[in-house]
């Protein structure tokens, strides 16, 4: 509500002036280039994934999904996502809250730090954990002495996934919360709400759509992460293989149907995420615009 006199910032579709409209051939060329690009690099691979998965029929598809190692990979992926997404939800919320609502020293540094997983190669992220928790690593001796297994086990996979996916929620929320400022919270407090009530009744509803986007993206990445997880997992079949790792193993064993069947699940997840996001935008478009805008 920066300026209540301005009712909305709807883009002026109809009133776009001739000055900024390109001529017809230019428009057609631009559109064609975009569509061809999307077709070759996005749509075609997606079609091939499903085509290969069903190359030997529906029966073979479901048979390969029913394989014990495959089922275990799916279970592990779900488990990892179920742990890392809530963790990053809480972390993202608190980081965004701290950055958007408070002034403190080193704030710019913290903001940059949150982006680190985006700028570092996932393989490096994985290696860091090997250096930290590996047998020759910094904490390796101590962990071994206490019988704690992190590397080549579920904890390591979860840690690597959390690391790689932690910017998603925070990145989505920080600009949103910064734009909204402290006014609503101050109003809630002045009306007698406790800090917790202000958060629950005012802050959270104000950012709920951004939060949901962040969680969807975070989840998609958590299930799909390959590089970092590959380094720390150890690729133990039926134990530390996640779906993306399992796809690679199956593919290297020339089990194309198996590999693409699992890949189709991951692709399906991506599609579901997209559809969900679009549905949310359609259903709550006005409300989302209202919480983001004015």
């Amino acid at each position, binding site marked *: 509500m920066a*300026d*209540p006199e301005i009712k909305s910032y709807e883009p002026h579709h109809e009133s776009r002036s001739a000055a900024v409209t390109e001529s017809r051939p230019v428009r057609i060329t631009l559109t064609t280039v975009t569509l061809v690009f999307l077709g070759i690099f996005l749509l075609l691979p997606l079609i091939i994934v499903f085509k290969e998965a069903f190359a030997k029929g529906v029966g073979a598809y479901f048979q390969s999904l029913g394989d014990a190692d495959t089922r275990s990979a799916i279970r592990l992926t779900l488990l990892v996502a179920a742990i890392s997404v809530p963790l990053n939800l809480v972390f993202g919320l608190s980081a965004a809250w701290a950055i958007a609502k408070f002034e403190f020293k080193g704030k710019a540094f913290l903001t940059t730090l949150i982006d680190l997983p985006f700028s570092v190669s996932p393989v490096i992220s994985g290696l860091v954990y090997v250096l930290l928790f590996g047998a020759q690593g910094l904490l390796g001796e101590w962990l071994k002495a206490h019988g704690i297994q992190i590397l080549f086990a579920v904890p390591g996979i979860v840690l690597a996934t959390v690391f790689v996916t932690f910017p998603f929620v925070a990145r989505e929320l920080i600009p949103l919360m910064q734009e909204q400022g402290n006014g*609503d919270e101050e109003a809630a407090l002045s009306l*007698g709400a406790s800090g917790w009530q202000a958060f629950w009744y005012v802050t959270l509803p104000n950012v709920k759509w951004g939060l949901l986007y962040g969680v969807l993206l975070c989840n998609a990445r958590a299930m799909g992460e390959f590089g970092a997880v590959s380094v720390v997992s150890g690729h133990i079949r039926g134990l530390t293989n996640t779906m993306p790792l399992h796809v690679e193993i199956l593919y290297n064993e020339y089990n194309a149907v198996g590999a693409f069947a699992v890949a189709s699940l991951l692709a399906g997840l991506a599609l579901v995420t997209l559809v969900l996001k679009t549905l949310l935008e359609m259903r709550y478009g006005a409300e989302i615009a209202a919480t983001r805008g004015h």
Partner: protein
Amino acid sequence: MEVRVVNVRKEFERFPALHDVSLDIKSGELIALLGPSGSGKTTLLRLIAGLERPTKGAIFFGEEDASQKSIQERNVGFVFQHYALFRHMTVADNIGFGLKVRHGAARPSSQEIRRRALELLDLVQLSGLEKRYPAQLSGGQRQRVALARAMAIEPKVLLLDEPFGALDAQVRRELRRWLREIHDRTGHTTVFVTHDQEEALELADRVVVMSQGRIEQVGTADDIYDTPNSPFVYSFIGESSSLPVKVENGEVWIADRPIGLEAPHAPPGEAVLYFRPHDVDLLDGCSGCIAGTVAASRRVAGTRRVELEIGGERQRVEIELPVDHPAAQKSRVAFRPRRWKLFPKA
């Protein structure tokens, strides 16, 4: 509720925003904090609310020291400059929020909350809009909802930060009158911040003029306008003209001529003369007057504003004449301020 601000100092990162400010607000009073931006008026309001803590000094609500209390405990109604309505709640839920977040026995039933919300909506003349969302209201309507929400908690003090700042001139004037009515009906002790002197003078029982973190003057509209106690207040409130003068033998001199103003109590030496451009007597002959050459003449609404050059130093000064006054056509005009004040040279 009587509010006393006692020797309050507020620093932001060592930068002082308020220096040793004291102010007594009477119970039931409607008081305006008026000043240019950066004068500390909003800081003072936020200190009273408890949104900020004073660096030094105390704030009393009645006999109680409120300075160490949190904003929740102070029970003040605060109306924010941009209203800060909860955008995902309906108008009724916005107004009822302060009651809903109460604990235990203090929390009314949901029917009671709704009844109170509708009652307040009626008070602010917005009946029928309870199901709307803030985004569906005009600026003036949002302002009223914000006020109703603040009043729902039966506050001890009502604090408004630039309540009409974001509205256009027409709505501003309407809401101003309406706020006065509401105040007279409910009798809340009310403090509002504004940079608009017309608003402050018209609406408030008393006006607190602030500048650079200090209170310059506190008084009624008449006090502030007719007897400003500092050059700042003189020039900030209304139109004013000033001229460097000299005091000698209990008389005011410009260059080597007395101008017919007696100042028996003023200390001799250099001073600055302040007067209102419209509050002057035009004179024909000139023995004991201020005379100047007309440098420019502008028509401003119902009057004509004439700029005069005075004396060898070519000091410029403005006076106001009736539109059809013959003096406006002349090249020299002589006048004497009717009401005026001397301040020591800065």
